[in-house]
């Protein structure tokens, strides 16, 4: 058993948590501002594909990262427009974006590379040792940043106001729509970085459906973390550890069913959201539209 809890398990946990942290911090900002965001999965896929394609064409992973982030942000503009400007149902819009996020990369893959499975191998972001790439520390630095933004700045206070009580925020002159747009766009950008992390950080290619539900797991981490950045970080580490346990068990040839190990993060998410969040308090204005009548 001592073979199991090693430095390798720790680094694997960090490696697998980092993309979740990016997406979760994005989701947290969006939800704190009052916009439900189940489209994180779609944003991640768009980011992952665009980053890989961008790297392929420019030959520079950092440019690829930029392209991936930008593309996911573009997708989040659609979500923001439908959810904020059109005042549509945020879950419905998110579902549509998830379908688009799965469909457009698969379609373009066929178009640009004439393959169905994945892009050709591309250059990867530089690593900092231990198999960790340069985005890993960025992910974990992001958490105190988001915390500071939300709880210690004027903008953060307004974001919270927009999420808790859009009408009251509006009545004291806060432009709720503007803050919500900013937060949804930020969520797109961050989820895009999370996606790029997968395709050009962790792997060196994009494969269809490579996010495998990480966007949803990130959202569950936000709920599990009670919409608090630090607690959300804890939740992402837990999910990351569940995935790392599988890698480790595989490496050590432990006699545990692979299917069960693959299912573990999903099972954990399910248990977390049903068993442990009974007293979770979402932003009171989540999903509510600001008054403009």
């Amino acid at each position, binding site marked *: 058993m001592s073979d199991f809890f090693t430095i390798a398990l720790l680094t694997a946990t960090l490696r697998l948590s980092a993309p979740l942290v990016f997406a979760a911090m994005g989701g947290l900002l969006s939800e704190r501002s009052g916009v439900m965001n189940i489209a994180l999965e779609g944003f991640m896929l768009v980011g992952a594909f665009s980053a890989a394609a961008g790297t392929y064409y420019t030959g520079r992973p950092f440019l690829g990262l930029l392209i991936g982030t930008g593309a996911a942000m573009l997708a989040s503009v659609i979500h923001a427009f439908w959810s904020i400007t059109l005042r549509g149902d945020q879950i*419905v819009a998110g579902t549509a974006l998830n379908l688009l996020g*799965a469909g457009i990369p698969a379609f373009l893959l066929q178009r640009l590379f004439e393959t169905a499975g994945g892009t050709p191998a591309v250059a990867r972001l530089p690593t900092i040792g231990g198999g960790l790439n340069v985005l890993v520390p960025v992910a974990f630095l992001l958490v105190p940043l988001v915390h500071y933004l939300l709880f210690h700045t004027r903008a953060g206070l307004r974001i919270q106001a927009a999420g808790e009580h859009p009408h009251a925020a509006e009545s004291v002159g806060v432009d709720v729509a503007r803050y919500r747009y900013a937060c949804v766009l930020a969520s797109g950008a961050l989820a895009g970085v999370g996606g790029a992390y997968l395709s050009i950080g962790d792997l060196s290619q994009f494969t269809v459906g490579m996010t*495998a539900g990480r966007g949803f797991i990130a959202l569950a981490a936000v*709920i599990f973390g009670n919409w608090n950045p630090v607690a959300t970080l804890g939740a992402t580490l837990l999910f990351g550890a569940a995935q790392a346990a599988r890698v480790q068990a595989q490496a050590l040839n432990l006699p545990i069913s692979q299917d069960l190990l693959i299912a573990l993060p999903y*099972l954990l998410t399910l248990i977390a959201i049903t068993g442990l*969040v009974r007293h979770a308090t979402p932003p009171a204005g989540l999903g509510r539209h600001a008054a403009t009548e």
Partner: protein
Amino acid sequence: MSTLQSRTSTSPRAPATWLTQAWSAVPALLSSVGAVVVALLVGALVIALTGDDAVTAYRALFAGAFGDRRALGETLVAATPLILAGLGFAVAFRAGVFNIGLEGQLVLGALTAGLIGGFGFGMPAMIYLPLALIAAAVAGGIWGAIPGFLKAKTGAHEVITTIMLNYLAFRVSAAAIGADDVFPVDPGSRATERAAEASRLPRLLEGTRLHAGIVLALVAAVILWYLLFCTTFGYRIRAVGLSRGAAAYAGIRWGRTITTAMFVSGLLAGLGGAADALGLQGRYYDVRVGYGFTAIAVGMVGRNHPAGVVLAGLLFGALSSGATRMQNTAGTSREIVQVLQGLVILSVAALVAISHLRLGQSLLGRLPSRRTGERVRSDRTSEAVSEPELESRPNPPAI
């Protein structure tokens, strides 16, 4: 309560009511058609932007969907699971639950049907086929009832729980297909053993792959229509979906109603999977086709009405069967269909949203939107409703 029930009289409807009903569906139908047209136009733009000829692509798509007898058969075959799962989406949506777990429910239904058929019991078709179908329906139903129950008991949002249950269903399916020491499966081809002839849905037309699943789907649509609009059960579902608070005031139990609605929803999706396994393939393949996700678009475009779902299911069936020919003859990747589905949902959502704004109302009338229950503040239910605050919407109930 009695006055409430009398409004959903179980007596046959007068023809006049029928006509008014049909007439009132016209704006919804027109706007759905409009939404589809908008989506197809944007899709054409996407095709053109990537350097293909959209006209050639759509022409091939149309030929592949309706061009000949075989194409028509393929359209109906593809429509079958979509209609069944789309009906499942509709019944959950009517209760105010957004079931994204149809894919997992469908997969488990298909797996169950495939396994039962694969065992090759020595039974006559009269018993074997219904047995396989019922088992598949129950498997899907249970998988659907879980998120309903969890939402009712703990307030866990169904969007997350159903998606997690999807992934878990995929793992269950993969594990079952790998366990050739327990089940009649063929791990080499990632499928169950070929189903016994007596457990298969019969073919309907020579020279096509059309099977009796389409009959099952249409019958299910009629039954669901009757359930939703002519029984107390359906009334409860709709009441809970329209206004949870008002329904609770009328003595309707929210938790029980949404759990049952989700059971029916999963049951229909499970049947959809079984129809595909026992009708088309003759076995269950552990391959994700994504019918369950397309069914969301089917339900939305069909405005969550059984008749609308049948029409939308046929449309998406046509898109899916035509996509193959489009890819082969026009070279446009079939993944564009998934893009079209996303676009259709967006344009339906936009139309519904616009119809709630003042300008839109005068142009379109008010279209039904997703209605979810309001908060109930009573001692008895306060515990259960602490979380669903998440989804109380300011959108006033439509219709």
